[in-house]
C-alpha cells in the first residue's frame, strides 16, 4: 500500500498550504491515531520512497539542519494517551504524542512526576526523547536517557519494535531507548515510552547571588559543587551583559531539609557576594522563571556544552571573542550548558540583508575550535534560513561519526527519515 491508498483511506491528507519544516515545504500530513496506524503510514511511505519528518508539539522543529526534503509529516498529536501509571512502582507508560505538561498533570495527584523540565512549552514526550530536551533539574535527575526504561518505536519500514520494559532495573537486550534519545526522528518514530518517576518534592528553597563577572560565577559555583549540598538546579541568568548576572540555586525535598541546605548554601555563596535566601512569596516566582531560554526574541541562539568547571572561563572567552555578538545568556552552571542569544532582535537580521551572516558563521566556527580544546560543543538551536545555509547546526561529531552513519544505514537504509537534519548530514 502506497501513499495514494493511504490518502484514499484517510490516513494521509494533503498538507494545508504553507506547511513547512524549517523552511522546507511539506506535501502531505498523516495523523495516526494508533501505533498500528503509524505502522501502516510508515510502510506506505516506504513503498513510495517518501521522506518523512515526525512532529510532536512542533516546539523544536528548527533544531538541526533543514531537511533535504519532506514528502510527509507524521504528526503524533493523536497518540496522546497515558497508557499505564503504576504509582506503586513509580513507573508510567505513555504514548509519544502526549504533551509533557498533560502527563505531569496526570501524575501529580499521585504525588509523582517525570523529572524532566525542558523549557519548551507544548513539548510532547516523543519530542523530548527525540530532541533530548532537558532543563535545570537535570543536575539532580539527569536527562531523558537516565529516566527512560522502555520504548516502542515504529521503524522506517513500518516495523513496530520495542526495547527495555516497564521495570526500572533491566539489562535484557540492547538499550535501544537510549539510542533513540536525541536521534531527532532519524531512526524511527517514538510511539510509546516508559519512564521511571520520582516523588514530587514537598518543599523548595531558593538562594540567589548576583555575579558581576564570569570569574565571580566560578568562585561561587566551584565550592558549591564540591560541598555536600545537593541542589536540584544551579542556574545562571544573564540577560544583559552590561548588568550583573544572577545565579539561582534550588533545593527541593522536605521543609527541614531544604531550609538547612539553603542556609548552608547562602553562607557558602556569601563568601563571594551577597547571597539571598528567597522569602516564601519569592520562591515560587523564582522557580517559575527558572530555565527560560534567553533567545525567544532573538534571531540566533546557540547551545554551548563544556565541562562544568570550565563554564565560567568558556563564557568569558566566547563573549569577549568569537561570540561577541551574544547578548542574553542563561545556563545550567552545575552541568556545563550555556544558552547564548544574539543581541539582534527577531527580524533585524533579515532587515540587515544578510550582511552579518558571514561574521556570525565565522564566530561559530571559531567558537567550536576553542571548545574542542575542552571536549565541548556548540549547537545552533535557532537561526534564520540565511544563517542555516552557511553553517552546520551541529558541528563536528567526533571520530564516531562513521559508526553513527552505519547505525543510520541499518535503521533507515533508504535515508528517508529527516534526511540531512542530523549530524554529518545524516
Amino acid at each position: 500500500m502506497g501513499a495514494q491508498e493511504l490518502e484514499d483511506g484517510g490516513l494521509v491528507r494533503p498538507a494545508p498550504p504553507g506547511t513547512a519544516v524549517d523552511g522546507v515545504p511539506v506535501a502531505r500530513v498523516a495523523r495516526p491515531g494508533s501505533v498500528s496506524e503509524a505502522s501502516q503510514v510508515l510502510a506506505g511511505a516506504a513503498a513510495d520512497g517518501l521522506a518523512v519528518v515526525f512532529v510532536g508539539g512542533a516546539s523544536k522543529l528548527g533544531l538541526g539542519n533543514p531537511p533535504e526534503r519532506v514528502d510527509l509529516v507524521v504528526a503524533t498529536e493523536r497518540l496522546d494517551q497515558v497508557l499505564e501509571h503504576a504509582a506503586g512502582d513509580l513507573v508510567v507508560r505513555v504514548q509519544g504524542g502526549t504533551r509533557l505538561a498533560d502527563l505531569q498533570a496526570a501524575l501529580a495527584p499521585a504525588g509523582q512526576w517525570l523529572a524532566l523540565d525542558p523549557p519548551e512549552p507544548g513539548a510532547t514526550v516523543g519530542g523530548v526523547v527525540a530532541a533530548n530536551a532537558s532543563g535545570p533539574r537535570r543536575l539532580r535527575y539527569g536527562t531523558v536517557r537516565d529516566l527512560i526504561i522502555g520504548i516502542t518505536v515504529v521503524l522506517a519500514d513500518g516495523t513496530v519494535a520495542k526495547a527495555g520494559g516497564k521495570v526500572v532495573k533491566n539489562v535484557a537486550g540492547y538499550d535501544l531507548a537510549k539510542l533513540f534519545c536525541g536521534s531527532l526522528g532519524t531512526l524511527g518514530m517514538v510511539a510509546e515510552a516508559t519512564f521511571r518517576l520520582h516523588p514530587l518534592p514537598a518543599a523548595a528553597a531558593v538562594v540567589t547571588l548576583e555575579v558581576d563577572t564570569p570569574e565571580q560565577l566560578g568562585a561561587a559555583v566551584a565550592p558549591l559543587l564540591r560541598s555536600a549540598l545537593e541542589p536540584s538546579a544551579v542556574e545562571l541568568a544573564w540577560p544583559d551583559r552590561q548588568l550583573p548576572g544572577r545565579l539561582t540555586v534550588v533545593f527541593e525535598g522536605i521543609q527541614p531539609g531544604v531550609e538547612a541546605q539553603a542556609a548552608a548554601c547562602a553562607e557558602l555563596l556569601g563568601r563571594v557576594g551577597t547571597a539571598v535566601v528567597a522569602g516564601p512569596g519569592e520562591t515560587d516566582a523564582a522557580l517559575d522563571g527558572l530555565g527560560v531560554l534567553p533567545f525567544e526574541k532573538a534571531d540566533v541562539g546557540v547551545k554551548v556544552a563544556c565541562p562544568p568547571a570550565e563554564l565560567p572561563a568558556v563564557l568569558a572567552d566566547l563573549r569577549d571573542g568569537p561570540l561577541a555578538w551574544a547578548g542574553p545568556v542563561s545556563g545550567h552552571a552545575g552541568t556545563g550548558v550555556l544558552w547564548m542569544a544574539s543581541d539582534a532582535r527577531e527580524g533585524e537580521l533579515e532587515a540587515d540583508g544578510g550582511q552579518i551572516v558571514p561574521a556570525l558563521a565565522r564566530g561559530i566556527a571559531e567558537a567550536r575550535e576553542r571548545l574542542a580544546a575542552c571536549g565541548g560543543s556548540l549547537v545552533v538551536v535557532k537561526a534564520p534560513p540565511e544563517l542555516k545555509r552557511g553553517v552546520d547546526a551541529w558541528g563536528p561529531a567526533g571520530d564516531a561519526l562513521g559508526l553513527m552513519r552505519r547505525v543510520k544505514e541499518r535503521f533507515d537504509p533508504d535515508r528517508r527519515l529527516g534526511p540531512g537534519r542530523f549530524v554529518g548530514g545524516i
Partner: protein
Amino acid sequence: MDRQALIRRLAEIVGPQGVISERNQLRTYECDGLANFRVIPSVVVLPETADQARDTVRACAEAGVPFVARGSGTGLSGGALPVSDGVLIVLARMRRVLEVDLDNQRAVVEPGVLNLQVTKEVAGDGFYYAPDPSSQQICSIGGNVAENSGGAHCLKYGFTTNHVTGLEVVLPDGELVHLGGGKAPDPPGYDLLGAFVGSEGTLGITTKITLRLLRKPEAVRTLMAAFDGTDQAGDAVSSIIGAGIVPAAIEMMDALAMEAAEAAVHVHYPEEAGAVLIVELDGPEAECEHQFDEVERLCREAGSTTIQIAESDDQRALFWKGRKSAFAAVGRISPDYYVQDGVIPRTALPEVLRRITELADERGLRVANVFHAGDGNLHPLVLYDGEVEGQEERAEELAAEILLTCLEHGGSITGEHGVGFDKKQYMPRQFSAADLDAMQLVRCAFDPEGRSNPGKVFPTPRLCGERPGPRRVHPAEQAGLAEVF
C-alpha cells in the same frame, strides 16, 4: 591464518609473556563466574595498553577469528565464556587510573581497574563511585560497562549506564572510536554510549572509561528491620516508597538466606524472623534524619518485630556484609546452588514470592531469597545437591520457571547479571522477533561479521545483510565462510 601464525602475530603485539596458548594454562580461563559452562579458548591475550588491545582486535579481524573480552571473570551469566576457535582478550592488566578530575567530578580509568579501587582513589577527597555490585572488590570497570552492572544502591543512584560519560572503544574491525562527551554534557550525535553500555561485549571492547564521581553524602543512616514474613516486609517497602521516600537501598533477605549469612558472618539476625529488611538512607543531614524516623515508624506499622539501627560505620558494614556475602554463604547450607536473577514490578513482590515457594515445593527443593526489594530485582538461590540424582535438572527447571513467572508479571529475565550465554534462549520470551531484529540492526552496524563475543545475548541472530522474514541460509554460511552463532 592458522593458529600458530596468529599466536606469533599476537606475541609481536603484546610480547610473548602476554600470550597464553598452552592447553593447561588456557583452562584457567575456561569459564567466568558461571561455572556451569566451560569452553577452552584457542588463545588468551593479555594486553597492557589500549594500543595493544586495538592491535589485538585488528589481528583477530585480519585472521577472521572471533574474540571474547574478559575483565575479572566474575560475571554470572557466562558473558565471558570463551569460544573454542576464538581469542580471549583479558583486560585485567590494563589497571591504570589515568586521571581524576574532581572539579568536573570525573575519573578516567582503564577497563581492568577494579570497581572498589575507583572509590578508594577518591575517598580521601570526599568522593565515591556509586555503582556497587556485590562483587565490587574484584569485578572490573570494563566488565561493569559490558554488563551495565547495578548494585544495592542503584535504587536511588542508577546503574553503570548512568555513571559512564565517555568510552574509548575498539570496534570489531580494529577501529578506535570515542563515544559520549566525557566531561562535557550532550555531545552532538547518536547516544552510542547508551547503546554500548550493557551490550555484553557484543559491540566491541572498551579501552578507556570516563566515570562520574559523586560527593559522599553528608549523612548515611541504616537500619535492619525484622518481620514475621516476606509479606510484612513487602508491605513496609510499599509504604516507604508510597511516602515519597527514595532510600539509597532497600534489601530483603528471607529466613533461609539469613540462616546462610548467619552461618558465614554472624550478623545476629533476630531468631524466628521470617524476613529482614536493610534500609539505608543518605543525603543532607536534616532530610536524612527526618526521613529515617519516618522509615522506622513505617516499618513498625507494617509489623516489624525488631529494629536495629546501625550506630557506627562498623555496624553498618556488618549489616551489608551479611547481605553481600549471602550468595557465597548459601554454600554453607547447601552443597550446590543456582543463582537466579529476575525482575518484577515491585508491587508484585508478595504474589511472586508465594509462587516461587509453590514452584519449589512442587519439586521438593528449597529457595533462599535475597533481593533488591526497592526495585523488584529478585535473586532466588535455588538449593540442590548435585550428588542426588535428578536434583540438578529439577533445580534448573525451577530456576527457569521462576524467570517465566517474572515475565508473566511484566518483568525481565535479568536485572543485573546479564543474558550472556545462560539466558539467551529466554530472549524470545521477553521480546518479539521484530524487537530482536531491531537490536540486531545495532549489532550489524558495530559488528557486521558477528565476531565480537559471538553466541551471547541473542538466540539465533540473523546474519547482517539478511532481510527480515523466514530464516534462510545465508550465502556466506552456505559457502562455509560464516557460522551462525
